[in-house]
């Protein structure tokens, strides 16, 4: 297996950069993509993240060549490929529904792209074997796709998409049909493949955890626009709008207005101080659950924090951490996450507590 890895990785080409310029797509009056600009770097793992209907698949299909944009261009290596048909683009693609050819064996499926390239027979055999080994299916080459489990089928699809050493691999929710455990396992395998192959991966998902786990960078789509582009850390720690904050990770958001160096909560009328670095405009105040601390009501909290009074609704034990669900006196629901040994005594369902955060951990968003 290691030998197979080495030969494959030394022979792969490097990834190609993809540049998407002002790409729009309309179906009649329905605008699905609106002037999308996106520069995908050579060899990076870029994830298109967004809710259902946000245009992820449409954008991916435009990159693949299955869909023509209404306006805009797609360039690879600086070459305009907007009107190049898919079979000339040389991108690998993995579909959510696997799309294996049911009338061919696993090995023939994987050999398909090599045969189209008229690769010599002996080499086809060798590369098919190598690639199946790479996805740990070396022993199943003779089977029909229908005789494999969903996870195995998707690995075959993966092998088939990389066997011809494309410089770009496109994946449209490839793990969407698999159960959680298998999904997590394949996430790691796909990441490993990406590191070994060094080619550009464009990955579509609506699952934020998957996006955070796998990506070098994430492009968050909403209604056909990219609302934020950045590393997983940036998306989580520095969301640029309320939508990003809510979509990526759990969040506590107060709605209100900024006045001077304070944020006035619309619901409770309470005023919270803002940190030095906080953005001075915006109508939302974000506190991530791990920044929300809890202390029993009779324990005083330090001066440097802001706090709300709340009642514990539920306390969920998750092994290494504990999620505490709270309701403020103004009726807003909050979530706090604490490490298990650090959860203070007296934090049980129905208890009155202070929920507080360091002013530097809260940020103001649109």
């Amino acid at each position, binding site marked *: 297996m290691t030998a197979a890895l080495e030969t494959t990785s030394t022979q792969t080409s490097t990834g190609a950069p993809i540049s998407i310029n002002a790409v729009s797509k309309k179906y009649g009056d329905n605008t699905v993509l609106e002037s999308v600009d996106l520069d995908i770097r050579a060899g990076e793992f870029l994830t298109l993240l967004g809710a259902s209907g946000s245009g992820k698949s449409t954008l991916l299909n435009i990159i*693949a060549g*299955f869909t023509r944009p209404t306006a805009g261009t797609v360039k690879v290596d600086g070459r305009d490929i907007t009107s190049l*048909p*898919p*079979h000339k683009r*040389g*991108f*690998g*693609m993995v*579909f959510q*529904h*696997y*799309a*294996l*050819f*049911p*009338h061919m064996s696993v090995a023939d499926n994987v050999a*398909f*792209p090599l045969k*189209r*390239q008229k690769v010599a027979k002996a080499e086809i055999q060798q590369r098919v074997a190598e690639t199946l080994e790479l996805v740990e299916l070396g022993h199943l080459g003779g089977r*029909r*796709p*229908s*005789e494999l489990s969903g996870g195995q089928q998707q690995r075959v699809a993966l092998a*088939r*998409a990389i066997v*011809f050493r494309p410089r770009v691999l*496109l994946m449209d929710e490839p793990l969407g049909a698999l159960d959680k455990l298998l999904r997590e396992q394949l996430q790691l395998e796909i990441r490993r493949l990406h590191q070994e192959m060094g080619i550009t991966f464009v990955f579509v998902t609506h699952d934020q955890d998957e996006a955070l786990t796998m990506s070098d960078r994430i492009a968050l789509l909403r209604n056909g626009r990219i609302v934020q582009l950045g590393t997983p850390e940036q998306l989580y720690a520095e969301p640029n709008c309320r939508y990003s904050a809510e979509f990526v990770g759990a969040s506590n958001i107060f709605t209100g207005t900024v006045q001077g160096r304070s944020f006035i909560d619309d619901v409770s009328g309470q005023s919270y101080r803002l940190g030095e670095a906080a953005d001075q405009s915006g109508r939302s105040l974000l506190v991530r659950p791990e920044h929300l601390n809890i202390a029993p009501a009779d324990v005083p909290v330090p001066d440097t924090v802001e706090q709300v009074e709340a009642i514990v609704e539920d306390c969920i034990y998750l092994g290494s951490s504990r999620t505490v669900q709270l309701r403020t006196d103004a009726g807003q629901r909050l979530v706090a996450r604490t490490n298990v040994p650090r959860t203070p005594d007296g934090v049980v369902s129905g208890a009155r507590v202070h929920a507080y955060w360091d002013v530097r951990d809260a940020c103001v968003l649109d």
Partner: protein
Amino acid sequence: MTSAATDSSTGRLRGRPRPLRLSRWLRFDGWGALVLPLLVFLVLVFGLPLVVMLSRSLTDPSFGLQNYRDIFANAVYPRVLGNTFLIAAIVTVVTLALAYPYAYLMTLVGPVWRMIMLGLVLVPFWTSILVRSFALVLFLRDTGAFNSTLQTLDVIDQPIPLIRTLTGVVFGMVQVALPFAVLPIFATMQGIDRRLLQAAESLGARPAGAFWRIFVPLSAPGVAAAVLLTFVQALGYYITPALLGGPKNTMIGELIVQQVSTVLRFGFAAALATLLLLTTFLLLVVAGRFVDLQKHLMRQT
């Protein structure tokens, strides 16, 4: 994925065949009894006559294989038999050539056009073969609408002889066979996942190549069913070749009718019919080795 699902439902993986036990077959519950009337009916109107026919071919006028020897003693009869197979083959090829693209088009158009196209195939199907064949005779004969139109348009000087020729027979038979080919092919094509073609293109196949390597093989079961239905049916055609064909295109069905109703050689007619039956069975067995007949003949209904 539809096809994958059906594949797995045959459960070939799980191998181990169930032991055939007589008790399994004889075990009737209340509902099983409902099949009895049909069984009795089939035995009475199909099974018994078949046995009678078989025995007659061996006993009438005298016991032995004389009737069968007679078939091969005169060069005319083997020729008619050969002719029957030839015509059936031609009809099958022509029918397929028309039905395949037609069925393909049906999978591409919207639901309204699909219904219209289905109707176009089925309306003749619901009309009596006799009526249709007569209509074709009127249409195709020398003074019929086809030839007179072409003559009026000065496309031809002399009428093209269509009736009483091979062309005429094929014309008429294809028309009868078309629904039997279009329906199974269409049913199979509809079950093919179009996204497989996209996948093939993403792997470097030209659109035509993707069609040829993915779509065509996946539609093969429907084609096999169509070929079988068309060919086996065509072997037994009687009315159409009788009305549209000439003496040179006599088919075995006509010959049998002739022996029964004109010459009154019942034993000989029975031998001819048995021969037709046996060759058809043989074909089914051979074909059955290549296609899962049960699966694909069932699916169209």
